[in-house]
């Protein structure tokens, strides 16, 4: 299941061919190197474009969001192993 985090994070990005892609982020005093951006999508909150990146770090899955109006990054959520229903 996804666990909401919604915390500001520092993110390192690379620019290539007009696209931006996160490569690492700092969270809980640790640098997390991103292995893969599995999906990108965009939404809006009011007029602010929000750029969402689903990423993997080792075995973990996160969603990072860049607010195009505030020019800030947040860690939205992470996937935690949930108990399977019986």
């Amino acid at each position, binding site marked *: *299941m*996804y666990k909401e985090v919604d915390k500001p994070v520092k993110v390192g990005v690379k620019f290539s061919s007009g696209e931006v892609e996160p490569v690492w982020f700092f969270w809980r005093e640790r640098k997390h190197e991103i292995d893969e951006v*599995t*999906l990108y*999508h*965009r*939404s*809006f*909150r*009011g*007029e602010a474009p929000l750029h*969402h990146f*689903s990423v*993997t770090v080792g075995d973990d*899955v996160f*969603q990072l969001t860049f607010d195009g109006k505030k020019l800030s990054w947040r860690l939205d959520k992470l*996937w935690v192993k*949930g108990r*399977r*229903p*019986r």
Partner: protein
Amino acid sequence: MSRTVLHIDMDSYFASVEQQANPKLRGEPIVVTGKPTIKSVVAAASKEAKEYGVESAMSTWEARKKCPGLMLVPGDPDKYEWVTNKFFEVLRSYSPRLEPFGVDEAYLDVTGKLEEFESPIELVEEIKGDLAEEFGDRITCSVGIARNKLMAKLASDMDKPDGMTWIGDEDIPEVLEEISLTDLCGIGSRTERRLNRLGIESVPELGDFPEKELKEEFGVDGARLKMMGQGKDPSRVLPASYEEEVKSVGNSLSLPEYKRTPRKAIPVLFKLAQKVGYRLRKRGLVAGTLKLIVRDGEFEVKGKQLTPGRYVDDGNLIYSIALEIKEELGFPATPTMVGIRASKLRPKDSLSRPLLPDRRKREKLLRVMDEVNEEYGKGTLYFAARSGSEDLLPSVGEFKRPGDLN
């Protein structure tokens, strides 16, 4: 040149998008739901969940009974809306003749594009490659190729997931022998029962049935039904132009099964009116003409417009006018889509300020509501009269036309 139509259908759509975003969900039986509670309804099931008999529209309680290890993933409408828009964008790069059919299906007339390819199969393979490059290899589609929309739609269902089926003219008689009446898009169980009462049990029997008798039972639709029985469909692939006109603002919604009655569709109209009003206000525009568009159970679209004699940008007023149009237009017994389009637009600041204090108050109220919703998210403040449509905003299964991002 004879026509070639593709029907492209994304496989297990919402579930595939979630599996693409999250590798932990790949290979797992998952369902996308509105809320991850036992009372929720399955919006989409992954192919792994489908193997257990889990289907869309099933309650999650029933789904878990069929598949005890099932994982419930809360839906993310923004994500699906983005992917849908990209999906249509990729298809449009091959032909402007794109007709979206729900959030995850579309018809594409590729007649003019075929000369660049050795065969339609090569073209479809390239489209599939483009989609994989855009989204990743977990989001796949099944494609039907045929001379018309009816047969293309039928073909896309024949090889799932990630399949491709080409029904050539010579294959049509054999295909029609093998399918049942309800396999044809536009024949539901109710129409099937009416056909059965006429003694028609199979598709070839429908094709052979006297047109006059079909017309006596179904009116003008009788001729269309006979053609369906012969695998014919003269309808064109129609781009959703009423949504794309620069000089108009419109919103439409394909209704989920449980909303397909006139009574239940009315709150949806209210919601659409609010949305059109908001979009007009955001652009500083007012509309002089409004159009109501409805699609019936047989997927026929009709519309009527009204010029009320004053310019509007207030959702409640737009709703009242839409209801007025509805009275004149009539409403189908089984509405499958409703839409409102505002046109004859002009800048609001070209009008004089309202003199009546009530109107000025109303404008202020709308402005404050818009500000709150922009700051704290869509739907934070809304009119209580929207009651009955709140489950549609935001909803996993909401139908949105491409470009309708705001």
